[in-house]
């Protein structure tokens, strides 16, 4: 127990983590011919929720209808299974190091209410942006860069460039 508390914030060396992540991307391309992803699973969830609640609306919509077919559920995609794996893998890693507990993580200078409000707003923006750019940091930037995709590099530069540019306005939340 004591050991767990001491280790709670001990993370891997970033170069070691990055090396393993690089090998994993390589392995993923070697096996499947495509890269990793994360936001795709959330898109599939939204599509299947809308398709369940309002099937005619989903079929008539220009965007949802792209992902609906009669043969299989929108949840039956590679990225949804991969996202389930991410949850399992992170749970194992967090469990082994004693990092699992219910909490809202925020800077001591702000309230957890403020943290949750900004998390919701940030999530909405990220979800919107990830659809416009057809992928997030994993699918577009990281996997795109592995095959020198021009779009992947542009998205990566835009994400980090804009995050640095707007960091000033959100500084109270973090430092």
């Amino acid at each position: 127990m004591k050991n767990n508390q001491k280790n709670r914030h001990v993370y891997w060396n970033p170069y070691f983590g990055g090396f393993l992540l690089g090998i994993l991307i390589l392995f993923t391309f070697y096996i499947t011919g495509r890269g990793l992803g994360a936001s795709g699973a959330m898109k599939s969830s939204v599509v299947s929720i809308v398709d369940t609640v309002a099937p005619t609306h989903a079929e008539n919509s220009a965007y949802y209808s792209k992902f609906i077919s009669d043969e299989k559920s929108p949840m039956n995609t590679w990225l949804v299974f991969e996202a389930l794996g991410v949850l399992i893998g992170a749970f194992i890693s967090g469990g082994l190091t004693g990092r699992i507990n219910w909490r809202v993580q925020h800077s001591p200078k702000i309230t957890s209410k403020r943290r949750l409000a900004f998390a919701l707003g940030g999530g909405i923006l990220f979800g919107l942006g990830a659809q416009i750019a057809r992928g997030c940091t994993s699918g577009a930037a990281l996997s795109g860069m592995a095959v020198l995709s021009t779009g992947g590099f542009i998205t990566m530069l835009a994400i980090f460039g804009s995050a640095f540019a707007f960091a000033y306005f959100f500084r109270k939340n973090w430092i």
Partner: protein
Amino acid sequence: MGPLIPNGIIPHEWDSIIAILIGIVFGFVLEASGFSSSRKLAGLFYGYDFAVLKVFFTAAIVSLIGMYYMDYLGYVDITQMYVHPTYLWGAIIGGIIMGVGFVAGGFCPGTSLCAVAIGKIDAIVYVIGIMIGVFIFSELYFLFEPIYEGFFMGNITLIDSLGVNPYWFIFIFTLIAILSFVISDIIRKRNKKIFY
């Protein structure tokens, strides 16, 4: 020769099983590198923790060098790989919006899933936010369609766009990454330490 599933060396039925296994490793590596902590991720933008830069750039270089090495040795055919398509303004505008979301919410989709797995309530709210964002995009698709479908340049790579030799590009890119690691360590030592 790879890729194995598209070329029929591993049967298609394995697709979902491999997806879960790859996801487990992906989630494990992200969580163990500290990416389930929004305050660690946001450290990059305020100069107190550069783990994102180091992990991200190292992964990009390892996968790039590995990919071209395997292509050179004949283990994979790089032309069969799926190249993320380039929709110029979609990539720029979408990226800018994601950047604001990143610094406001402190996560990106993959890292938020890791944080959900270890019980961070802010990450659960963030994932709900992402789903609302996707919903808004889908409902207002007619507004976004011009940038979503427009300015399509094909599944191009930097070799096509810049006309560079890939090996030289990777070599210079690696040097830039190493330089950024050195600079980031200097900046971090100068800044006040933040505990989280």
